[in-house]
């Protein structure tokens, strides 16, 4: 009995040692020479493997950084400037800081603004719904509400608001990887400058229909009237195909456009004072001008305070 056990132990031990030697020999024979810096760079990466940088994963990105010898075309949207600084430190390279971005949902089509006119009964996917028809509301450009963006987000930063039927982006969690932008078949989600103190102004509509048609489908649609274009002192707004667009690189957050918009299609986010009503256009100019007019800083660290997109209600 005892001898059996002893022999078993001996046999297993010998087998283990033999296999270990084999493994070692194989490992040395097939060792792949790799730049050790790739490992170092990978260590400072966020490790989400989201593909937001355009590479297959964090390791592929690290490899590209090491091999290209420059960080000009390599930027990790998830880690942002902080991570890129670390990468630069590892590789001894220069980094061009980028202003942090955030995903913005450009649709005002809440259940109240944009009543549904038919019932969709297919598989709940925006992609499938978009391929089938214009959607269950009168607006053929707006959000379809099946949540493809929610499914695409690896960071849990998008959720559907059951009250409005629209997706809501959690600015704190959003890393601007762009997965939702790709997932949206209606091209409603856009990556926009996060803005100083997370303040930003944007046109929350992409409806290209003529004013009357757009307005009929959705009471908060951009009707392409051009009032904002005229009101903008910085030439940041263009109206094309019956819809206005604000260039966030030119916008100084003066909010004159918000005041003149007749349908409330232009949204301002995270401003301390509530957005002024259109009638009081003249009165509002003074107060928020100071922070808004501040030069566009790269905003080294994103605002710490968790500011949700709460100001996003129709005026």
């Amino acid at each position, binding site marked *: 009995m005892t001898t059996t056990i002893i022999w078993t132990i001996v046999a297993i031990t010998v087998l283990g040692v033999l296999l270990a030697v084999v493994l070692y020999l194989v490992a040395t024979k097939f060792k792949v020479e790799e730049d050790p810096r790739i490992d170092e760079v990978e260590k400072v990466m966020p490790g989400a493997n989201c593909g937001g940088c355009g590479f297959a994963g964090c390791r592929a990105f690290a490899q590209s950084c090491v091999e290209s010898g420059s960080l000009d075309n390599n930027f990790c949207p998830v880690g942002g400037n902080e991570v890129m600084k670390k990468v630069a430190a590892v590789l001894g390279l220069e980094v061009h800081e980028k202003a942090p971005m955030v995903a913005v949902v450009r649709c005002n089509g809440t259940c109240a603004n944009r009543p*549904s006119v038919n019932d969709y009964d297919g598989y709940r996917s925006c992609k499938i719904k978009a391929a089938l028809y214009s959607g269950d509301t009168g607006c053929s450009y707006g959000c379809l509400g099946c949540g493809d963006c929610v499914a695409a987000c690896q960071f849990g930063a998008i959720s559907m608001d059951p009250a409005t039927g629209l997706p809501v982006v959690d600015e704190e969690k959003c890393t601007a990887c762009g997965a939702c932008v790709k997932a949206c078949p209606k091209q409603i989600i856009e990556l926009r400058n996060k803005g100083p103190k997370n303040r930003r102004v944007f046109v929350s509509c992409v409806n290209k229909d003529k004013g009357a048609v757009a307005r009929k489908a959705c009471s908060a649609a951009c009707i392409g009237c051009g009032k904002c274009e005229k009101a903008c002192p910085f030439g940041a707004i263009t109206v094309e195909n019956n819809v206005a667009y604000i260039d966030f690189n030119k916008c100084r957050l003066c909010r004159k456009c918000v005041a003149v918009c007749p349908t409330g299609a232009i949204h301002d986010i995270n401003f301390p004072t509530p957005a002024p009503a259109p009638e009081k256009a003249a009165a509002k100019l003074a107060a928020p001008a100071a922070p808004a007019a501040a030069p566009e800083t790269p905003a080294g660290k994103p605002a710490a305070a968790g500011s949700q997109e709460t100001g996003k209600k129709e005026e």
Partner: protein
Amino acid sequence: MNRLLVSPSPHIHSKTSTRSLMLDVVIALLPSVLVSVLYYGWSAVIILASSVVFCVLLEYLITKYLLRRPGTVGDLSAVVTGIILALNLPPTAPWWIALIGSIVAIGVAKMTFGGLGQNVFNPAITGRVFLLISFPAIMTTWSGAKGFIGGADAVSGATPLGIVKEGLMQGQTIDQIFAAHDFSYLQMLFVNIGGSAGEISALAVLAGFIYLLARKVIRPHITLSILVTVAVFSGIFWLVDPSRYTDPLFNLLTGGVLLGSVFMATDYVTSPMSDKGGIIFGIGIGIITMLIRYFGSYPEGMSFAILIMNATVPLINKFCKQKKFGRA
């Protein structure tokens, strides 16, 4: 006016549902259930009822409290599992055997994999094999059952397969065993006391098979390939040495070959999708069954054979695709 419904095509659906398919299987099982109740009496009723109740109850409790998903009891798959499990048990088994079998079948073999459609192994057979290995005494004893009609005190020591195995171990030849025991094939076809509840009547199982085929619930490939393989395999051995190997008809009619090939091997979830795959699957089951019967220590091998072949299904599915239109 109502809001219009909009969906991609097609806009109509056949009347078949998971529930209707399972209901058809239950109906197909009824002849076997009826025969076992008639010949094993109240003990069969108890084992059938407890097995079905436990299976359904377990599935309900697991989906509701463990998985916290919408209930799936309505699809009747647990009922089917319960009946098949009961038909695989000796009717004299106590009720708690059914409970343990149900826990293994539903709890272990089915729900841990994610419920209906996700399991790799047939739940009822997994339950039966677990019981067979854990409680061999109970699982191979048939005595004391009192039927409603016929064979008043249906007492039988073992199944025909068990008797043959026992005899061969004692050095008897097939002829001697058959001479000592009165195996009537005609009786096996109708009612053959001695065996699991579902094994006793070949005719009842065949009636269910015809019903399933007529309702297009299953295709005949798997069942027929098992039966043909069993017949051919045993035929070859029997011709070589009839004193050591039982004949094909005996092998087809005894044990769980019929019940297993009609109701267990054809389980959608754990059998291959294509006809070609089904035939390979069936041949595998037939060969393994006969290997166990002739050379193994267990008298019967159907359950083991089905379980072993269940494990090969993903592989069979991968390599046996049906012919595509316009492709060589």
